């Protein structure tokens, strides 16, 4: 991790939820930061190329487009890698993680509609020979205000 300039730190921290919806958002940021618009654009471009910024834009409410669920499986340690590979192979799966619990494989499945979602879960279960625990979201309590990066 390299050192970030003060301008970069502010770009990363202060504008996670407050990009103005105006025709010239980067000029507005530049104005607030007291720099040129081109400096803002170049800095964001660099941060994006480095992968620190994934994008400038919108974070959507879950299930706004299509449907999704969180699923978990309990897999014996020696089978985990091969089972995970089968699961990751599904186009509908993203975020496939190992976690330290008896339920040790956690993944998110997305599909265009609820019927397809259930089919995919069934297919994953059939192909891996493991029961899939389906944990759809029922209520969202998260107020996304961005994430305060505590620069030290």
């Amino acid at each position, binding site marked *: 991790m390299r050192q970030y300039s003060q301008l970069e730190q502010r770009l*990363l921290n202060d*504008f*996670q*939820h407050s*990009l103005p*919806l*105006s*025709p010239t*958002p*980067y*000029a507005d940021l530049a104005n607030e930061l007291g720099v040129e*618009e081109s400096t803002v*654009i170049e800095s*964001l471009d660099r941060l*994006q190329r480095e*992968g*620190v*910024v*994934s*994008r*400038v*834009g*919108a*974070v*959507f*409410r*879950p299930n*706004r*487009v299509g449907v*999704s669920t*969180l699923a978990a499986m309990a897999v014996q340690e020696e089978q985990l890698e091969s089972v*995970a590979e089968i699961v990751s192979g599904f*186009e*509908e799966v*993203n*975020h*496939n*993680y*190992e*976690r*330290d619990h008896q339920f*040790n494989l*956690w*993944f*998110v*499945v997305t*599909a*265009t509609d609820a019927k397809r979602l259930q089919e995919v879960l069934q297919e994953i279960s059939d192909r891996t020979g493991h029961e899939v*625990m389906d*944990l*759809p979201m*029922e*209520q*969202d*309590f*998260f*107020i*996304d205000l961005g*994430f305060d*990066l505590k620069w030290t």
Partner: protein
Amino acid sequence: MDMRVDNPAFEKSLIDVISQGLPLTGRPYAVIARQLCCSENQVLEVLQRLVQRGDIKRFGVVVRHRKLGYRANGMVVWNIPDEQVSELGSCIGQYDFVTLCYQRPRRLPAWPYNLFSMVHGHDRTEVIKQVDMIVEQCGLQNIEYNILFSGRCFKQRGAHYAEFRKKTEPVSIQHEMAANG
């Protein structure tokens, strides 16, 4: 395609384009407008509506925290009496180091937990300290919980929906940080 901005198909195309990120250029909405054959004003108008409706949770710089040294993430799962879920869920969801706070069904007897939150920190010790703080400040001393730290990451990318598959770029809909579902 009918390009009236109140058309759901128009909204969908705009969401599709906007999910890939704003172009880094002086008039980014004008660039998007050209792609969608509409005016810059119409793009802004629909985005404003999506924000007001809560379909867009936030609009800004989306940061990959892992790249900035936030390497530990714990999925903290809580077993909260149903009648207290709203109150306590709102309390847990307000912390800036918490991303995602969802109620999900219990699957008894194997899975008693009904509230899921993702807590991020530089390392596990920091995550545990933050969970202790939540417990104390939200009054969760009598609530059963468990922290599931992440191990290997087998796959991570933004959500990807079948109808967009023609496009070469993936559509990332949610926070890159953690599982949403």
